[in-house]
């Protein structure tokens, strides 16, 4: 995920006492990622979802959750084995042979609970920052770091 193309659309909503975050990584499923998946490499999209509040010097992280989506393609059976985990706990796993399903599986997330709304201040201004990066990375030699995609959305919590 390099270049100016990839972007993350973040949509926070508060429902049933939970702050739920939906996000979608657009243009992140690049040819390089597809090649990596098709080569049979276990490919992971990792998202760090953080609820943050602005401050004078350093913004404060109110809550965070790490969501990962992993897919591995079996070239013999031509099937994708997908899984999702939240903070390291595997929550879902399923096979598929549909490439579009894989793309959606890896890049589209709906209503991820991040924090209880009781922790939020009424009329307080917050923002949700989502930082995504892939593994394996196909970065250039000598400076393999970086390449993360960032997206964020501000909101005012109104009860």
């Amino acid at each position: 995920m390099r270049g100016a193309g990839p972007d993350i659309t973040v949509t926070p909503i508060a429902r049933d006492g939970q702050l739920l975050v939906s996000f979608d990584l657009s243009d992140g499923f690049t040819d390089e990622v597809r090649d990596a998946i098709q080569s049979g490499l276990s490919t992971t999209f990792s998202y760090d979802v953080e609820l943050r509040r602005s401050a004078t010097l350093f913004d404060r992280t109110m809550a965070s959750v790490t969501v990962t989506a992993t897919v591995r393609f079996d070239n013999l059976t031509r099937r994708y084995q997908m899984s999702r985990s939240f903070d390291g706990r595997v929550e879902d796993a399923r096979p598929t042979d549909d490439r579009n399903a894989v793309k959606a599986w890896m890049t589209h997330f709906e209503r991820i609970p991040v924090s209880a709304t009781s922790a939020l201040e009424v009329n307080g201004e917050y923002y949700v920052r989502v930082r995504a990066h892939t593994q394996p990375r196909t970065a250039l030699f000598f400076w393999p770091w970086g390449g993360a995609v960032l997206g964020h959305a501000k909101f005012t919590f109104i009860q």
Partner: protein
Amino acid sequence: MPATVTSISPRRTSGPGRPQPPPRRRPFRDSPKLILAGIAVLVGVLIALLAIANGTSRFSPDFLSEFVLYALSAADLTMLAALLFVLARNIIKLVVERRKALPFARFRAKLVALLLVMTFVPSVLVLIVGSELIRTSVDRWFNAPMEEILTSANKIASDYYHERQMLVSDHAARIARSLGAVDLSGTNVRPIRDLLAPDVTLQRVQLVEVYRVTLQAPAFGSLPNLEPVVDVAAPALPPGYSRAAADRLAAQALSSGSTTPGASETSSIESLGASGDLLHAAAVIRGKDGRPTGVVVATDYLTGELAVRSRSMSQAFEKYNQLRVLKRPLTGVYLSFFLGVTLMILVGATWMGVYMAKRITGPVQMLAAAAREIGAGRLDQRVEPQSHDEFGSLVEAFNSMASELASSRRKVERSTIELERKHLEVEGRRRYIETILERITTGVVSIDAAGTITMINSAASRLLTLNRQIIGQPAFAVFDRIDLQPIAKLVAGAGRAKDEAPAQEIAIARDGQELHLAVAATALAGDSGAPEGVVLVLDDVTPLIRAQKVAAWREVARRLAHEIKNPLTPIQLSAERLRKNFSGAPPHARALIEECTTTIVGEVESLKGLVDEFSQFARMPSPRTVPSDLAQLITDTIALYNGLFTDVSIEQRFAPGVPLVRLDPEQMRRVIINLVDNAIEAMERRGRIVVETQLDGANSLVRVVVADDGPGIPPAERDKLFLPYYSTKRRGSGLGLAIVRRIIAEHGGSIDVGDNVPRGTRFTIELPC
């Protein structure tokens, strides 16, 4: 290895109450242990890199790209930062040292630059060539034939699996359709088994499992319950088979078939490892009303060898593709290895180069700094040797030299102090002698072996009327003057004489007066007897000679007075007796006798007066001095002449501030009268006389001057003026000025005669005050 010399320090002398400073610790970076540890770490890292590089073939590509590449990149960046730091630090240091013009800064900079160039050039060249080789090698991994072979092999295996999967799915669907009319809820499974048996017997499938949907209402959101009804398995199935995969697949098929009626079939592959693979396919059994009544799972079995080979082909293809996908990071891994080793060599070489340059120039810098300190006079500076090699020996030699210098300097200082003391002593003596020579009335003239006058004191200068500028001139030229030629002869004779010649009296004319000098010329000889010159000693014996003459004349006068005075009275009495006895003689005879006796008596009276003066000269009493006002004395004395000489004017000038002078007023009045009388006589009772006093405070003298404007006295006669019985007058005894000189001499003074300006004679009396 060059010496380790780390510091210079002044060597302090220990004393009571003065704590010794702690010994300087060797800098941490110069610790051999640290150096060895650093080298060991570098070697260890190098070995680790080599081991990792050798093991890359065993690592998975993603491990290499995710872990090894990061670690290597971090290590490379760290070493690069260290290299840049070492280089920047030393470059800045060298620049600063050169700007400060520190010694050996230029040499050190050149040495470091040379070592760096010697290291950098080959290292960078090897890095460039090696990197290109790595890139080329990696590119060769992915050649077209290999890709085609692996892709084809994978396609064959995959297609085979896919076809077998499709067959099993078809069989499952067919069986599901055939079971649609069968009641699965019954307990009699025989009809079902009979229906399934041909598929298994004919090896269309290896296993058929039938599930029925239970009547229990499913909970919201959960899958419907399935219950195994019957299964028919071929005997060729491997013993590790279990129902779990078929159960999950059945549930999954029922779930997807319930929600999506079109998607009522699904499949899966269960790997049994080396025993082979099981290809499962599930199909939903639907009743006449289309509702799901059960699920059939058909399973085909791929033998172990076939499955393993297919899997191997697929894995080879995947590995190839993974390498291709991870080509850049993998290339980066190998380049990082290479770069790491190169950087390690560069860091080590740079550090070693800088270290070596420092170790080489350090001791020399220390010695140079210490030499400058010693040159500046701080001889207690020492360099601390910390090795026993050639540099250590050099440092020891330098310290020994410094110690010798310090010792010599102390000796020189002691000698200098002693010399200064002696010089002061000699200078004191010289000033003492010089003062004496300047103050004494004896004249001293020094002449060196070359005949050059080296010294003349004030007395000699005054006696010989020579100024100090004759110093440095040849003696024969100076004494070539007519009146000084006798001295020249004495000097010449002193140089030739073996014994010390006695003093000789010579007379020289000075200011028209004869000056009698007793001159002794003494030859100087050195320790070796070599002549070193002549010393002339001159004494003014003129007063002595005058005194001797006066004394002689006084003796003559005393005897003359005694011898003459005795017969005068009888002569006078006899003459008066004759005149008395012949008072009755004839007038002619009586007149003759009267005339003769009168003449005899008159001359006798005159002789008596002369004898009295002689007696007075011979028996002049000692002056009875009292503090007297000289001006008043002169005024009172001059007052005696008021109205006596109408054509003579006597002017008096008295200097202010003249103190009282101890003198005998009567004798001093006689002196003034004598001088004024002489002046009046010399002017033939017409002219101007000036009597004045002068104060010479510097010499504690009072001068009385009697000057006239008469005809003056020729210089040749001036010295004789003060001798007894010398007179320029037709009448007179010639004792006046002799008495005057004697009176003045007995008052401790002196009298001198000279020319008056513009004419006349000027007598000057000097009296101590």
